Structure formats: structure tokens, C-alpha cells
């Protein structure tokens, strides 16, 4: 939910997992040899069973008229009614539109920003300066969602600094956060994502660019290649596989991230443009009108889309770069 997954941690090499495949042998022998290890694992297994697998089982609620007082075993089964309600509800289409629009912005502009920043930083050879810029650009990453959205509301309020700045370019002074017109909230959300993530996201690309063989650059320079050529013909192709992996990873996770900022920023007047699957699911469970069944159905729909995207992007990643997410 609110967790930010360190992207790199879940990238893995196919080959490696194959090497570590267990040797053949009887299970009995294995248990005799490794029984203590398995016992050690019990707390970890329990954690995942209770807080990750039990909720999956809880998805059965989406086929029920769930009442907390009667629990999952006592509530009435109503088949696909929750899904029918979800898909035919008037909010569903707009929620789907908002989710897709913000996901798309996140995957394009939001994805490109750290790559471009990394190229700029690597292209400049005053390392003390670029290092300072880098460190400073990490700072927003450590700012909490609550604080980021508070800052955004303040800077974009009718007397906020950004609103004043925008008014120089002819935009009317207004409370931008409350603007219900179509691209405004989407752009604000993307802008916040970029502000928070651009520096942090660039780390991995900067490291990759630093790894490009400098002899290649020297040889190219000897042959008269200018900076621009070297950037496009050497640096960019070398980090392209990484860019593809990161993009597929992001496609896989785009439906899973960053909804808590929207939850903090949106208001009834902007539901029309700001409501996404996550916030809709949340509101159906913890808002004014509680409908756990519908909320779980929406959550399941979201989870299925997320999983599909993850599997597809994983496949793409394997095809293009032989690296996989899972």
C-alpha cells in the first residue's frame, strides 16, 4: 500500500535461481538434514500466511453480502452481484479513466524524468557540483506523503507560491487542488510524483552510466565523435536494457503505488477527476457508506489487473533483456 519497494531488490537473474535449485534426493533425507532450518522458517511462514495469504482468502468476501458481525463464514453468498454492481455503477467508468490516465502519465513523463536527470548529471563533469545536486535532489524522497500533500495544497492554494508563479504566465489565480477540470489534478499528481522521485530514481541510471566503459568514450572521441554522438551512440544504448527492465517493472507495479497521496489530496469536488480504483475501494470500506462486499470486489478487480500487468511485463522483460522481475 504505502510501501515503496526498492525496485532493484526484486530483480533477479533467471540463471541464478536455476543454480540454487535443490539437488535430487528423497524428501525424507532432506527433512532429516534440514528439519531444523525449516523449523526456523516457521515465524516467517506464519507472517506471510497471516498477513499476505489470509487476506487473499478474504477476497471471497467479494462474492458475499459481507457483514462484519457474521464474519466470512456466516455472511450470505450472492454470487457475482458485487461485480455487477461495481461494473454498472456510474462511478466505475470515471474511476477507470482516472486510474488509467494517471498511470499513463506516471509511465511516460514520470518514468522519463529520472532517466533524463541521470543523463544530465552524468554528462556534466564537475563532479563536486553534480554530487551536491544529486544529494539535494534525494531530499524530497524522504518527505512523507502527509507532508508532501500538505506542501502541495499550500503551494497551489490561491495565495500559494506556485499559483503566483503560474499567474505570471497568464493562469488565473485559484486553488488549483480544487480545480475540477480535466487534466489539472492528473498533472498535479504527476508533478508531485516527479518532485519526490526524480532524484532517487536517477541513482540506478547514474550508476549504470558510470559503469559504461570509459575506453569506449575515449576511442570514440579519438575518432572525432562529439558529445552528442557519444551520448546517443554509446551511453544510451548501454543503459537501454536497464531502461527497458525498469519500465516493465514500473508497468507491473503502476497499479499498486502512490494512492495515499491522492487519498490525502482529493475532495468531494474533485472526485470526478481524482478518484482512482484504490481510493474508491477505500471509500467503499471506510467512508460514509460502507459496502465491504463492493469494496472487496473493486480490490479484487484491481489486484487482477495488477497481476496481469506484472505477468505481461515480466514476460516482456525476459524477452528484451533476459532479466526478470520474479
Amino acid at each position: 500500500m504505502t510501501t515503496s519497494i526498492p525496485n532493484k531488490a526484486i530483480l533477479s537473474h533467471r540463471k541464478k535461481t536455476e543454480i540454487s535449485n535443490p539437488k535430487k534426493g528423497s524428501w525424507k533425507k532432506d527433512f532429516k538434514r534440514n528439519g531444523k532450518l525449516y523449523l526456523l522458517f516457521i515465524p516467517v511462514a506464519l507472517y506471510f500466511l497471516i498477513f499476505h495469504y489470509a487476506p487473499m482468502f478474504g477476497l471471497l468476501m467479494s462474492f458475499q453480502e459481507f457483514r462484519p458481525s457474521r464474519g466470512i463464514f456466516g455472511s450470505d453468498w450472492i454470487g457475482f452481484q458485487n461485480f455487477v454492481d461495481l461494473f454498472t455503477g456510474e462511478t466505475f467508468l470515471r474511476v477507470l479513466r482516472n486510474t488509467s490516465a494517471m498511470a499513463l502519465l506516471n509511465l511516460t513523463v514520470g518514468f522519463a524524468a529520472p532517466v533524463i536527470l541521470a543523463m544530465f548529471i552524468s554528462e556534466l563533469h564537475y563532479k563536486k557540483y553534480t554530487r551536491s545536486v544529486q544529494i539535494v535532489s534525494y531530499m524530497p524522497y524522504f518527505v512523507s506523503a502527509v507532508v508532501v500533500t500538505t506542501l502541495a495544497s499550500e503551494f497551489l492554494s490561491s495565495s500559494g507560491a506556485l499559483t503566483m508563479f503560474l499567474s505570471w504566465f497568464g493562469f488565473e489565480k485559484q486553488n488549483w487542488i480544487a480545480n475540477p477540470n480535466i487534466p489539472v489534478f492528473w498533472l498535479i499528481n504527476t508533478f508531485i510524483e516527479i518532485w519526490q522521485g526524480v532524484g532517487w530514481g536517477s541513482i540506478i541510471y547514474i550508476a549504470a552510466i558510470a559503469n559504461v566503459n570509459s575506453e569506449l568514450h575515449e576511442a570514440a572521441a579519438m575518432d572525432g565523435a562529439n558529445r552528442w554522438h557519444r551520448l546517443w551512440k554509446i551511453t544510451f544504448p548501454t543503459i537501454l536494457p536497464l531502461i527497458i527492465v525498469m519500465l516493465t517493472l514500473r508497468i507491473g507495479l503502476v497499479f499498486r503505488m502512490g494512492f495515499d497521496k491522492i487519498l490525502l489530496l482529493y475532495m468531494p469536488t474533485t472526485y470526478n477527476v481524482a478518484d482512482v480504483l484504490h481510493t474508491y475501494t477505500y471509500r467503499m470500506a471506510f467512508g460514509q457508506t460502507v459496502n465491504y462486499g463492493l469494496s472487496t470486489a473493486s480490490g479484487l478487480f484491481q489486484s487482477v489487473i495488477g497481476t496481469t500487468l506484472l505477468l505481461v511485463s515480466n514476460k516482456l522483460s525476459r524477452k528484451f533483456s533476459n532479466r526478470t522481475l520474479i
Partner: protein
Amino acid sequence: MAALRMGRRKIKSGMIEEKTPLSIAVDVVLIIILLLVALASIIPLWHVLMASLSDGQLLFAHSGLVSLPIGKINIDGYKLILQNGNILLGYMNTIVYVVGNVALGFVLNVIGGYVLSRKTKLGGPLRLFVVFTILFTGGVVPLYMVVRSLEMVGTRWSLIIPHCTNAAFLIMMIKAFENVPEETVEAAKMDGAGHLRIMFQVMLPQCFSFALVTMVNQGIIAWNAWFSASIYVPTNKSLWPVQLWIRELVASNRDFLNWTNPDYSRFLIQYCVIVLATFPLLMMFPLFIRRLEKGMALGAVKG
């Protein structure tokens, strides 16, 4: 890991610098762009810091950026926080949650990482068992129901246990343990060391920087978390973390002027709390930054 080190060495050995006018112009443009990026990153934070030191009433009437404290510099807001038991309690709660999450997550990550890095017959299925949780999730509501049925809703445990680790961190620790040379483990086994001893005393010191990366990440997540608290302890304010107090203060400041006798230093509180909740992390992260960067860059280097 080697990438950053190598990168630095390469830079020292010097890359090819051309001094054509065009190249210099490009450099200037890049310097300006990067300066703007740095300014954009730092200005909002600076604004909050300066606002927290301003005069409440003048600040309230002020619009736009606060580049220097407005009016007489004062720390009334901070004083109010010290008098306000709630926010101090929120601070304490946040610290409890951070320590709890990090400690519990650390134990689970190390145990899980160790067990799954050993070559066993059940290792493959167990890995799948962990990785599958990245692939598919139950979502907010079913998790809430689970936590509820464990009778953890309304207690501190609901903010410590459910999110103390995740598959990504665990996988990172598996890789860390896999990278420890097998000879040291064999040697320890010869000396009759048990699993716990091998895990904590032999292997962990050799891959501690990875454990640190997971711990720091987990710590940041826990420090900044607000959502879990808002659903698990919505009304029990004595259990609120400081982030939830920020949300509350900002919301109550929206109708600030409706108060019969507005105390303008109250208006300052929100800035002061933001400073107190944000700047500790900003002060501390440079200490960890090299290791965190290494952790981030790991995948890139292996590729």
C-alpha cells in the same frame, strides 16, 4: 557495488574534456538545469523551515513563498508543541512504531534470508511462497478483516506487525546471504556452530550492509506511515503517530479563522510539526546515503 567505486575512480582519472565553445555552452545549460532541479527540491522544505520561525499573525496574512522568517524570528510554535502533550506522545508513538517495525522486520528478514539461501529441497517452493505475495495481494479490506479478527485493531500491534517486512526485502536478504562465501560457513560448521550462530555471528556480519539497507528503508516507511494508523486506530488518538497529527492539524487549520479568538501561534504549529517530523530524516539520510545508493544500484551493476 563496485559500480559506484569504479565510477568514482574513472572520474578521477579524467574523461575526455573538449573545450569547444559549443561544449562550454552545453555545460552552462546543464549547470543551470541542475541548479533549478536542486532549487525545486529544496525550496518547499526551506519555505516550511522559515515559516515555522515566523511571526504567526504576519505569516497568516502572507501569501507566496517564505524565503526568510516573516516578522520577528520566534519559536512560539515549537514552544506550543512542547506544551502540547498530544504531539509529543505522537512523536513517542512514531518512534515505538519505527523501532518495532525495524526490529521485527530485521529478525524475519535475516531468518528468512538465511533459510532460503541454503540449498534445500523445500527451498524452491518456499521462495515461490514468498514471491507470490508480490504477484497477488488481498488488498486493504481483507487485510483489515484479518487484523480485526486477530483483535489487533485499536492496538499498537496493528501498526507494528502487518507491514514489518515484504517479499522484496526478504529477497534482497536471500541474495545477500547467497553472496557470503560458502567456505566461511563450512568452517563454522566444522567448529560445531548451529544455525543461529552461523546466521547471526558468521554470515550476518559479512552481509550487514544489505541488512542495513532493508532496515533503513523499513525505518523510513514506518516513520512516514499514516494510512495504517488512520484505519486501525482512527479514534484512539493516544496511539496516533506524528504523521496523523500533522494531517489533523492541517485540517483543523483550514477553518482557523472561524475560531472566536484565533491564537496565531497555533497557526504556526503545523509548520513546526512538519519540520520536526521531516528534518530528522533529512539530517540522517546523508549518513546512510552511500549504502542506500549501493543497495539501489545493485541490480544495475549485476546486469
